[in-house]
């Protein structure tokens, strides 16, 4: 309530003193790759940010100041992310940064952001096992995507044998590690978990698909949990379709395939396969309808919305409210104001910013439709994001609480803070 009144005050101020807007521009850094391999995913997020900033300026900006976007291009080059982040913070002197997609780019930026006390909003689902004082993670932690999807496999589909297929990098590796531990805690034998890693852009899937089919030989129902990234999905789903595997025989749940990725695929053979996210374009709420209309109006009718866009949508609006509540853009003040911020999700319900810098968000599971969209068949209530997973022994004893403990890596056994910087 306090935030809303503060926001209202800010809005009245803004309307009462329009002249102020020119004097105090608030700079918002946008650190997304506009060229290179990640451009396809990240350009969308840059446009999302520009849309959001324009919308906010149309509403009168924040605390009477106009927002100005500073867009830089780190070109999918990980060291360049660190360089550009430093440039944003020291040369352009931005007050907040929205950016990054891949984990490695985030790890590259972390030391710079922490050294210069910047503020970063990171919008993509990630592997967790990290907590930085200077980063708000608005995407899903593993317990907000991977664990609920696995529960769905276990309980609703009765899967008894798991194939964890992933691209060989940090997100699939960590997620699969967590899932292996989780499945074993759910009495799935180690022999019933098949793990495979492939390179980025892998295209020769016939043997792996044959291996997965062969898993069914001991009479257990097989399911695939896919953390396959990007382009490689195309070959994978093509091979799956060619092998005549329907979602009823061997369901595949993907954590990295959203509306944007499906737009490069003919989905008629994939109907019924699954994806788990915190947002699908097909969610039926008024806020979502407005957002889709605004997005399509700006970018074109054929464009789709996806989960990381919603993460920026929530993250940006929370930041705006936090600035309004703090009355200034100072990083420490805004961070304190962020805790407990609430903002309605596009899928219904309310997202809350937790002291561990993660959101509580609902988890949705959707089935792929022939139109390249997802049919939502399961929606949980809000799940609080967990920085340190409870299913790996080393991180189970760690918690993150920047509000009261002032520590992102607090060991509950020794009751001490392991480190106040993040691990990169």
């Amino acid at each position, binding site marked *: 309530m306090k935030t809303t009144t503060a926001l209202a005050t800010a809005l009245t101020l803004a309307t009462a003193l329009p002249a102020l807007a020119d004097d105090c521009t608030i700079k918002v850094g946008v650190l997304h790759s506009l060229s290179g391999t990640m451009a396809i995913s990240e350009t969308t997020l840059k446009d999302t940010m520009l849309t959001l900033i324009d919308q906010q300026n149309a509403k009168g900006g924040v605390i009477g100041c106009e927002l100005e976007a500073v*867009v830089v*291009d780190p070109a999918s080059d*990980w060291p360049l992310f660190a360089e550009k982040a430093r440039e944003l913070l020291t040369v352009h002197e931005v007050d907040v940064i929205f950016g990054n997609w891949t984990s490695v780019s985030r790890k590259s930026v972390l*030391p710079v952001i922490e050294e210069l006390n910047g503020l970063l909003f990171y919008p993509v689902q990630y*592997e967790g096992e990290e907590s930085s004082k200077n980063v708000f993670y608005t995407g899903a932690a593993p317990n907000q995507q991977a664990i609920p999807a696995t529960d769905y496999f276990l309980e609703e589909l009765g899967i008894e044998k798991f194939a964890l297929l992933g691209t060989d*990098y940090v997100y699939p590796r960590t997620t699969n590690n967590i899932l292996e531990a989780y499945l074993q805690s759910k009495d799935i034998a180690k022999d019933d978990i098949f793990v495979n890693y492939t*390179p*980025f852009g892998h295209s020769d899937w016939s043997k792996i698909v044959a291996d997965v089919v062969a898993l069914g030989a001991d009479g257990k129902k097989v399911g695939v949990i896919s953390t396959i990234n990007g382009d490689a999905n195309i070959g994978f789903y093509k091979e799956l379709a060619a092998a005549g595997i329907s979602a009823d025989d061997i369901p595949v749940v993907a954590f990295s395939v959203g509306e944007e990725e499906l737009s490069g695929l003919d989905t008629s053979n994939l109907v019924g396969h699954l994806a788990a996210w915190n947002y699908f374009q097909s969610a039926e709420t008024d806020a979502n309808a407005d957002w889709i209309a605004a997005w399509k109006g700006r970018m074109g009718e054929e464009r789709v919305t996806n989960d990381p866009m919603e993460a920026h949508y929530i993250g940006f609006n929370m930041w705006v409210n936090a600035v309004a509540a703090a009355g200034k853009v100072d990083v420490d003040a805004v961070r304190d104001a962020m805790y407990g911020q609430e903002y309605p999700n596009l899928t219904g319900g309310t997202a809350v910013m937790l002291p561990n810098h993660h959101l509580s968000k609902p988890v949705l599971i959707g089935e792929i439709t022939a139109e390249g969209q997802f049919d939502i068949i399961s929606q949980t209530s809000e799940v609080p994001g967990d920085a340190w997973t409870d299913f790996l022994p080393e991180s189970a004893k760690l918690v993150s609480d920047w509000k009261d403990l002032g520590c992102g890596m607090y060991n509950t056994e020794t009751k001490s803070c392991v480190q106040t910087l993040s691990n990169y």
Partner: protein
Amino acid sequence: MNRSFIARNPSVLIFLSILALFTLLVTLLSEGFGAGLVSTSMVKTLGKTLCLCLIAVAMDLIWGYTGILSLGHFAFFGLGGYMIGMWLMFERTRQIVVTSLSEGVLPPTPEDIQAAIGNQIFGVVGSSEFPLIWMFADSLVLQLAFVVLVPGALAFVFGWLAFRSRVTGVYLSILTQAMTLGLSLYLFQNASGLRGNNGLSGLQNLPGVTAPQSVVSLWFFWASALALALGYLLVAWVVSGKFGSVIRGIRDNEARVRFLGYSVESYKLAVFTLTACISGIAGALYYPQAGIINPAEVAPIASIYLAVWVAIGGRGRLYGAVIGTALVSLVSSWFTGGQAPDVNLGFYTIKWVDWWLVLLGLSFVLVTLYAPRGIGGLFDLVARKNPGEGP
């Protein structure tokens, strides 16, 4: 002897003077020590460029003077970076871990510390065991030695096999490219023990150093300038003597040199290994400034760009390699960094971010076709000197 070498090569003295002047200027204008006109990120960029110039000098020695087009020197560069990166990560993490563990009731055992470091470093990439190759990561001296020894050893083994089998020309180029691809694929694997795609990060934070980055960046800048100066001197000295004549002979007509009784393979192997060592040092200075090293850095394309820089600068002359590298890499980062203003043609807006690579590729074709001596060739025109050094 040294004096006569300098006297015979006035360009070396000129180069070193310019480098010293440049270093002094940047220091005086920097944020850390001086006027603050040159930002810390600019100091880092310039320092990295000096490292690239150093590897370009090595590339010029192997390609411009010896005639071996290696498409694998960035692999050595990356290995150097990984070697120093291992120590930086290990030591930084060890300090954190020891501080945190000593808060426990019992003092930590060495096993506890080792396990906690492993978990901190590799927990990020989904494992916690210490791979064997990190055995010496706790020793700065050994890892520094590895910066030279590991690239050197790889180059020696690879070169020994390749030169012994008389693999030459484009075959050798493709083979070196395959080696680079193999190394980068290996590093991409999480199982390689070097954190796979994530690589080693946070390298700009020196363990135990509390000085701000504006100062640390200058230290590395000076170190890079010094390394470039020494590397330049070394290579200039190597090519000026009899050794230099022999390798130029190999470049121009390998068979004749062999018939004269020289062991062509030994000369090639010596140059290949030496340049790999120089590349390793350049990499070890580069990546702490970049902050992160990962397998994408070692991808074959990087080594090809290196050849492009040297070719544009003019191979067969060391200052040409330096000029080409400094120019192209700085201009590249200016264009791709989004600072260059877009050109609006009315019907189409040229975004440099998109079109720079097209331009670079085509200009490269043009240089190869019409200006094989590169930018360095311009100096010949100015000096009206007989262009004897070029290929």
